[in-house]
């Protein structure tokens, strides 16, 4: 029966979870204080962030060490896979809220404000001059929202960004093949290209934001169009940034000789995440930039 016992793996007590909570709590307190207008908030926020980064190194360090120590059996591997898969699903639903806001604005709130359907009285009594349109260059009210002249077209930078992300999805798969056939060089090359493409995407996106803010006058404050545009692309850009950091982490681990052709959940988790970010971008490209 002793063998049966060793089938189960239960980790030792750990202080990393409570450290995680403490660091995020500190960041929240700092962030909220800063939003309320007290400058001391930025120091609290920074302190929390440092603690958070320290925690990431510590917690993931333990997991990587245990994994490389070979104490994770197949059952643990499946638990990790399920955990990551459902985490990604929760992220999908997070994006769904913002996509929902976009569809609602385009399908309902803007047309209703323009007098369509049951919105006739709304239009007549609130902003009779307002005409519904998408992209909505001019918000119903002249007060508090800045107008813009042009949106970012789909076939410029966003098109190239689409190409970049799709290519990076292919290169991460190519890296996976390298890992599976046991070719370390192939793996490292594939990951390095993927990290570079991810960083390039983020760079283009940042440059595009600069263009929107300084030349087009398209900002977060540009009515519902600006709100949905920056929330969706910004939240996605944040995820790409995270994904790139994750990819860089497993690139470093690959260089150190981690992962085996059979046992590389860490790699796969990051690859899944990267494909998820990729698919969300397709949605963004179609619904935010293109149609």
């Amino acid at each position, binding site marked *: *029966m002793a063998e*049966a*016992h060793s089938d*189960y793996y*239960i*980790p030792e*007590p*750990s*202080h*990393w*979870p*409570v450290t995680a*909570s*403490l660091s*995020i*709590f500190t960041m*929240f307190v700092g*962030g*909220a204080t800063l*939003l*309320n207008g007290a400058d001391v908030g930025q120091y609290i926020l920074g302190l929390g962030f440092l603690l958070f980064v320290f925690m990431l190194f510590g*917690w993931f360090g333990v997991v990587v060490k245990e994994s490389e120590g070979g104490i994770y059996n197949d*059952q643990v591997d*499946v*638990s990790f896979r*399920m*955990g990551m898969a*459902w985490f990604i699903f*929760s*992220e999908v*639903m*997070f994006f*769904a*809220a913002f996509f*929902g*806001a976009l569809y*609602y*604005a385009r399908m309902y*709130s803007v047309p*209703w*404000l323009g007098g369509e*359907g*049951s919105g006739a009285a*709304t239009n007549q009594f*609130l902003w009779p001059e307002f005409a519904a349109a998408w992209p*909505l260059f001019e918000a*119903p*009210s002249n*007060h*508090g*929202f800045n107008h813009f002249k042009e949106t970012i077209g789909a076939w410029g930078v966003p098109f190239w960004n689409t190409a970049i992300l799709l290519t990076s999805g292919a290169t991460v798969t190519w890296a996976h093949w390298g890992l599976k056939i046991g070719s370390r060089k192939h793996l490292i090359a594939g990951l390095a290209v993927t990290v570079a493409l991810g960083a390039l995407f983020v760079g283009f996106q940042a440059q595009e934001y600069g263009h929107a803010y300084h030349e087009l006058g398209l*900002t*977060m*404050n540009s*009515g*519902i169009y*600006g*709100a949905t545009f*920056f*929330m969706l692309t910004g939240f996605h850009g944040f995820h790409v940034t995270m994904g790139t950091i994750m990819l860089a982490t497993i690139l470093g681990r690959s260089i150190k000789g981690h992962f085996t052709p059979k046992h590389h959940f860490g790699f796969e988790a990051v690859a899944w995440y990267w494909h998820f970010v990729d698919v969300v971008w397709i949605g963004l490209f179609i619904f935010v930039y293109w149609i």
Partner: protein
Amino acid sequence: MSEAATHDDHHDDHHDHHPSGLMRWITTTNHKDIGTLYLLFSLTMFFIGGIMAMVIRLELFQPGLQFVDPQFFNSMTTMHALVMIFGAVMPAWTGFANWMIPIMIGAPDMALPRLNNWSFWILPFAFTLLLSTLFMPGGAPAGGWTMYPPLVLQTGAAFPFLIFAVHFMGASSIAGAINIIATVFNMRAPGMTLMKLPLFVWTWIITAFLLIASIPVLAGAVTMLLTDKFFGTAFFSAAGGGDPVMFQHIFWFFGHPEVYILILPAFGIVSAIIPTFARKPLFGYSSMVYATGAIAFLSFIVWAHHMFTVGMPLAGELFFMYTTILIAVPTGLKVFNWVATMWRSSMTFETPMLFALAFVVLFTIGGFSGLMLGVTPVDFQYHDTYFVVAHFHYVLVTGAVFALMAGAYFWLPKWTGNMYDEKLGQWHFWTSTISVNVLFFPQHFLGLAGMPRRIPDYAVQFADFNMVSSIGGFVFGLSQLLFVMVVVKCIRGGEKATDQVWEGAHGLEWTLPSPPPYHSFTVAPEPSSIEGGMR
């Protein structure tokens, strides 16, 4: 005691090392320790939220403003809801899940024990954020727990703390839900097939799906509130082309699954208790599973019944009315099955059974008032009145909380190894059940007569029923101290509990000693010892 369990004891000797004192609880990766933490946290929040309810009922005891100013009153209603939903009921279910699911499925622990520790240890920090707002300039959030804009955007310094607290609690719930799904799908003992799972496990998996699908939507909604307030976005501002009603749609897309998150595990517990004390297998096990799934599915397409009066297109009103009424079918099926289980059975009425029976009757009353509210033209009359307050307190207090009490009495002997004081338990039951009806039943009448919710003062014609309701409230609040007495006494000692505890009890948890070893099943139980979930 089974052979497997003896082995557990043996293995336990070398596997049982952990830090002692406070660090044991802070660093623990053990499902029972974490379950205990969740349950104690939940009980604490139940009393903090309860004190807020007492303030509300005290102010409403008589017409006029007696004790608190209206702003603080509104803070109390808002915080009472947030504390009870996110602090008391949801953590209590996760606590039950932590304690019972690994044992029920024959596993040694949860699938992701460190994540499990984290999902608990978020909560004290999240509630520090939330409760600290009571002491901030501008006071605690007072715009209602639903956080509707534009009202909620007028919150003072508390606003970003509220938003971040909601994000934080949500992260805890999602992590807990992921863990439960991974545990059930990956850690079941050989022979524990899906259709043999106890219903508590089934209802919890479905609850976990609801959590993972709905909580992120809430996070998205409150994030948009945050950017509307601080970063100039116009999601919920018509002046910018957005719509405050859009918040309500997004919020209730989360909010309706949320109410089933609060009640589905209750169905699971009641489905365990009634067969035990009726000494008969559960009637219609598989239909219970499918009904739970049907309720979960429907919960995603009924959300706008919370907002019939906002001025939706007629097609929307009709769609959401029909889907809402449809929920009565699987729910009615469940009630039928519980009653059919008791038909021609040999029942005894220990405290868990009493709470479970009260659940069936009183939850059904809450379900009926829900049906009334689901009918669009009728809801126009009832919307935002005390009828709604009465409805959701019947389903949440005499529903969810009564099931929690039933479950606590049911498993306390298993957890502590000692029988609870049955006489005190019976007192707790009867005082609670009588007073809770005195508390909430008159609120139906108040609502039908037109008394709006969330007001500190009211017209004099509502005075009598409000006074009756407040008296019921105070008695109900005090009665819960009896529960604390029961729990404390039970932890400290009492008649030793047997492994099976209850004569009619079936299932893996009753094959382990009371209390069970530190790691539940370090050796999988014999497949032949696994019965179907209907027992």
